[in-house]
């Protein structure tokens, strides 16, 4: 059993990274990720973490440096948010294309303009297709656990891909939560040292990242995609081992009051905590409402999602990101694609809420469920609805 304590979630993530015995950190501070990397820098400065902390002048350089340290065989970590993630964009595809198992926390935050330091999930949704394994945390404990697990998943020889742990900016990153910190001994037993398969070493030269002529590029992308799809099994294995060792279970799609639910709320991240309270109230009123939550976002858990919506009349998807001019929220459009082949499928209602730090309230969930009921009865009227916008 670990030590039960109250800790700011950002600091719990730093603690997880330290316990993972990370060897290199290259990061640039940006709200609301700052506390994570400040704490790691302090740990290195104080001699509590034996790692190279690389100060860089931008997030593009941070991810470039991470690619370098990972390529020489070091367990590598970084964290960012919003504009910082956007600035990393180019290098994210290089990290996954080079099969470097870098682990990154994103303290999800809105994208400018207008400038917003507050939370939503626009940042990671813009990087949806960057080839990284991606998970969402709901609680501080999730954030701690997923951060340790992600190293093991990414570094598995069957995977060798980078991974993102999403924690909502402020609503998760800056709150103090009760959580269990596992001991160094237990984490060491769970997470063996990283064994790089290909190492940049002048004594044994290799070329990493050569030109991929048209006759090989497609094959190399096939390799990469197969590795990401195949990571699903490794994710399940790692989560099963974690549960056995530490007693906390993780699933690709997690559900709450979903078994007999007619309407399922589908939402990722910390706002699902508010959804639970709303669901409890609706259940007391005799309404059959539940929740399904995509824990694993990439690789997308198609079969788990199809199983999770079985029997429901409608799914109310709440996205904290907007696909401008598109079909609605990213989580909703993925779910619609996922369910399209099914002969019998629920209505998928897409709602955009909680942009740029706007609270998603219990009342909002009542509105969302009522709107979904209306769509079930009378059919779709809009591609999606914006919740809480003043008109």
């Amino acid at each position: 059993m670990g030590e039960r304590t109250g800790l700011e979630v950002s600091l719990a993530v730093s603690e997880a990274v330290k316990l993972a015995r990370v060897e290199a950190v290259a990061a640039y501070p940006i709200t609301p990720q700052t506390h994570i990397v400040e704490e790691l820098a302090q740990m290195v400065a104080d001699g509590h973490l034996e790692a190279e902390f690389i100060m860089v002048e931008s997030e593009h350089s941070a991810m470039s440096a991470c690619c370098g340290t990972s390529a020489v065989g070091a367990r590598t970590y970084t964290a960012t948010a919003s504009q910082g993630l956007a600035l990393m964009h180019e290098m994210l595809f290089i990290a996954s294309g080079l099969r470097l198992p870098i682990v990154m926390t994103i303290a999800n935050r809105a994208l400018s303009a207008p400038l917003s330091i507050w939370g939503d999930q626009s940042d990671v949704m813009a990087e949806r297709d960057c080839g990284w394994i991606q998970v969402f945390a709901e609680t501080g404990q999730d954030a701690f656990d997923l951060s340790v697990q992600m190293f093991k998943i990414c570094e598995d020889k069957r995977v060798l891909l980078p991974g993102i742990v999403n924690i909502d900016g402020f609503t998760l990153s800056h709150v103090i939560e009760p959580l269990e910190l596992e001991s160094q001994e237990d984490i060491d037993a769970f997470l063996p040292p990283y064994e790089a398969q290909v190492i940049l070493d002048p004594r044994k030269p290799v070329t990493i990242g050569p030109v991929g002529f048209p006759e090989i590029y497609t094959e190399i992308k096939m390799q990469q995609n197969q590795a990401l799809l195949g990571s699903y099994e490794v994710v399940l294995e790692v989560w099963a081992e974690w549960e056995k060792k530490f007693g906390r279970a993780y699933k690709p799609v997690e559900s709450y009051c979903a078994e007999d639910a007619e309407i399922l709320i589908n939402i990722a991240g910390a706002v699902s905590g508010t959804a639970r309270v709303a669901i409890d109230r609706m259940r007391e009123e005799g309404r059959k409402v539940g929740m399904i939550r995509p824990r694993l976002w990439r690789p997308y858990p198609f079969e788990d999602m199809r199983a999770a919506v079985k029997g429901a009349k409608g799914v109310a998807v709440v996205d904290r990101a907007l696909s401008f001019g598109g079909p609605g929220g990213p989580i909703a459009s993925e779910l619609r694609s996922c369910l399209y082949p099914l002969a019998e499928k629920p209505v998928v209602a897409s709602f955009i809420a909680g942009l740029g730090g706007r609270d998603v309230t219990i009342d909002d969930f009542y509105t969302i469920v009522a709107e979904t009921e209306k769509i079930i009865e009378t059919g779709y009227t809009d591609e999606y609805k914006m919740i809480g916008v003043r008109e």
Partner: protein
Amino acid sequence: MASDKPTWKEYPMAATIHQPGSATGQNTGDWRSERPIRHPEKCDKCGICWIFCPDAALFMNEEGFYEVDLYHCKGCGICVRECAKGAIEMVEEGE
């Protein structure tokens, strides 16, 4: 369609190259539209063409003159521009 080229499973992960210097096997000379022609009678063996060649496509022969490796020369013409003696000129391929 059957092919004798490797499948996606047969390539090294991420196309990593484990054989140093393997690019020498790439015939990059077929990109060329012009090729350098040497005039050894004007050449004083200074080696400036060899220094400036961005592709290491020049090499010294037994007599100390610089010859062009046409398998790799892309025909950029830098050697012609840098040669103080006018000992190299570019001619159209096919001439």
